């Protein structure tokens, strides 16, 4: 039986020890942040959490036990690249945790099953080296019941392995830890564009259009279409190719458009298409559209705009044309029908470029596209000068060029110009450094030069 004259730890003594520990931790500890893990989605059978969120950070002083350097093997080169195996042990005050963290977690009991103690899987952010530690084990019996009570938690931690967890605590220092890590897709966005302009002349005896008699097959590249010469201006044309289902990888001719309808032809010129295609020309002796000259290529086009040509006078044929867009600018106008019966040079109007492109995306905000896919992602890095937007945690990987993407918090909205689903290895802004472990694109580029896909799969593709 214990000596009744000794309490082996009265409430007052226990309180004193706890106070002393709290004081020591405040003097010698580090200003860490305790970041609880919200278990969003768990899977049965394999028993693992597939979706986690870290959206709160509680300042909490912690004492770093590793005075001679961190435990673990440090930085090692593994077959999976550089791996940091740093481990650390932190001591936190039990009372401080119960006072400053646990009550908040208890209020959100739907999100946190266990709230009255530090939990394995939660994160601890150390300001030394801005390291993000994951708690592996919570030791609560060291020291072991001094004065019949435990006053500290000893947290055995290792540096966090990141996948696609949402870290959005509103403490920038913490959130920025994984700003360039994990899977990232890069979108290049378009700014507000300028509409392209073009003009044309009136031509007589020009080729009105080219009729494709046989679309041919087996073309590996667009064939050079030649049109017999004219006493005046020679007509030139270009073949637009297409893939026909069931004819392997080689292509057929979709249509032949005029670059220059020419002029002063006396008879119907001969159209020569190398290979298996056959085409004939139609000629107009009345006024038609001549060669179209781009006066301004414009900018900010994300989709090929329509080309409108003023209608021909009564009895004539309206001219039609298509624009060619390269890198957001209109590089040429191809004439599909030069028309006839025009008495003066018609006016050419090219569809407007995008008028969207405003604002700055905010790090970690959700962005959403306007199209039916409603794909969302989270902003990692936004570089306004080059208009590149790096996003992660994509819900579909179905971004389409030409669709609008809007920041749900910032309201910034731009149109997508190009999409690269390979994690970028460099940044336009030197502020960001990428942990380069991603040769996917390099393999693709190198393989394109040596792999032969010309012989299709005889069993078909899907």
């Amino acid at each position, binding site marked *: 039986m214990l000596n009744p004259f000794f309490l082996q730890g009265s409430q007052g003594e226990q309180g004193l020890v706890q106070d002393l520990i709290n004081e020591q931790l405040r003097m010698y500890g580090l200003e860490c942040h305790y970041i609880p893990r919200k278990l*969003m*989605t768990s*899977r049965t059978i*394999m028993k*693992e959490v*597939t*979706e986690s969120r870290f959206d709160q950070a509680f300042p909490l002083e912690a004492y770093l036990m590793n005075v001679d350097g961190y435990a673990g093997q440090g*930085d090692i*080169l593994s*077959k*999976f*690249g*550089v*791996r*940091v195996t*740093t481990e650390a042990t932190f001591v936190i005050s039990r009372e401080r945790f119960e006072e400053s963290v646990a009550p908040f977690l208890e209020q959100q009991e739907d999100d946190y099953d266990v709230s009255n103690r530090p939990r*394995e899987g939660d994160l601890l952010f150390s300001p030394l*080296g*801005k*390291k*993000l530690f994951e708690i*592996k*084990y919570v030791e609560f019996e060291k020291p072991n019941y001094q004065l019949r009570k435990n006053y500290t938690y000893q947290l*055995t931690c*290792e*540096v*966090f*392995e*990141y*996948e*696609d967890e949402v870290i959005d605590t509103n403490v920038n220092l913490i959130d920025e*830890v*994984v700003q360039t*890590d*994990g*899977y990232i897709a890069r979108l290049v966005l378009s700014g507000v564009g300028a509409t392209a302009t073009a003009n044309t002349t009136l031509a007589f005896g020009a080729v009105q259009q080219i009729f494709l008699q046989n679309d041919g097959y087996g073309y590996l590249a667009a064939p050079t279409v030649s049109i*017999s010469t004219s006493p005046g201006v020679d007509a030139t044309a270009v073949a637009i190719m297409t893939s026909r289902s069931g004819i392997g990888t080689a292509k057929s001719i979709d249509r032949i458009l005029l670059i220059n309808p020419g002029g002063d032809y006396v008879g119907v010129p*001969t159209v020569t298409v190398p290979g298996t295609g056959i085409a004939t020309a139609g000629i107009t002796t009345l006024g038609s559209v001549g060669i179209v000259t781009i006066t301004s290529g414009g900018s900010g086009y994300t989709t090929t705009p329509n080309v409108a040509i003023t209608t021909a006078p009564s009895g004539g044929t309206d001219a039609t044309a298509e624009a060619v867009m390269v890198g957001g600018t209109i590089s040429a106008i191809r004439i599909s029908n030069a028309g006839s019966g025009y008495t003066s040079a018609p006016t050419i109007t090219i569809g407007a470029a995008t008028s969207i492109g405003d604002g700055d995306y905010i790090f970690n905000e959700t962005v959403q596209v306007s199209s039916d896919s409603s794909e969302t992602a989270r902003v990692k890095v936004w570089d306004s000068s080059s208009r590149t937007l790096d996003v992660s*945690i*994509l*819900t*579909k*990987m179905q971004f389409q060029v030409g669709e609008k993407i809007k920041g749900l918090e910032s309201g910034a909205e731009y149109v997508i110009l190009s999409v690269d*689903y390979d*994690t970028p290895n460099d940044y336009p802004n030197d502020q960001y*450094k990428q*942990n*380069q*472990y*991603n*040769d*996917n694109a390099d*393999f*693709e580029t*190198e*393989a394109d*030069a*040596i*792999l*032969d896909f010309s012989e299709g799969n005889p069993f078909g593709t899907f």
Partner: protein
Amino acid sequence: MLGTYFYHEILRKTVIGFGTLFNNINIRHKDASGTNFSVMKVPLAYGPMQKFLARIQQQPELEREIAITLPRLSFEMQGLQYDPTRKTGIAQTFIAKGGTTAKKVYMPIPYNVSFELSILAKLSDDGLQILEQIVPYFQPSFNITINLIDSIGEKKDIPIVLESINYSDQYEGSFETRRTIVYTLGFTAKTYLFGPVADDPAGLIKKVDVDYYGSTNITTAKRVQRYSATPLAKQNYDDDTTTVLDGAISEKVTKFKVSATTDLAANQRIIIDTEIMKIRSISGQNVTVFRAHDNTVAASHDHGASIGVLSATDNASIEFGDDFGFDEMSSFFSDGKEFSPSQGIDI
């Protein structure tokens, strides 16, 4: 003995070919409602690398805030082994087209390259997603066609055989140790290594002679007939166009007017556009021809189309891989001579 420098980068190409199979693998995470909340492309890299580069590129700032991003795919070449089952004659050579010249190459040596593909995953479900997207393609092999030697355009089908799948999940033991999920897939790429590629000293065969003998007795038989075949050009290599059509012609016309006949002669082969014709006769500025000669197709030609003469110069300019025709000649003998390959004459 050895030491003729050559490096076709075949093993590097095999590594690239192997790696590119796995560079577009995605994994998905679903939220509680069953919709995707995250789609990721799994990063892939060839494991071995220069150590300082690894440090500089993957840890540019010394303070690395996180351990690693997951999941990851890594592979490395593990060994080379001669494959006797695909052995061919060691002294056999073949002639291949290298640009415009003939190249002589020894038959390739079959080698099996062992690869190990490793999947490092944070969640076992990630590992399974990746694995399930790889394994069904290998039954047990998957073929890729690699252009092993660009200079001769030698494309080979390389079967990649899935040999083994191992799985390690260290989850037992102290809570303080890390759980690591690694799948290791063993593959064999059945590639070919090539020796040096030399210019073929014999060059192109420009003439074939076949001698026929009057009897099968090889000691007393005398040659009776020689059949010679020489290539005929189907292109105007020297571009000698000295005259043009004076008026358009249809595909049926056999007599037409040209601007000048000075350089033309009967029995000459001429080419207009892509049609070859043989001249029957010349009368003033009019030329009578056989149309659609040498298996070409008769076509209409425009006024002013240039007329090229196919001469012996063109025949000598035929390059490796070009389309060409044949000129045949039969000679009859009663002299009993034989052709000497060493002297190149009949003796």
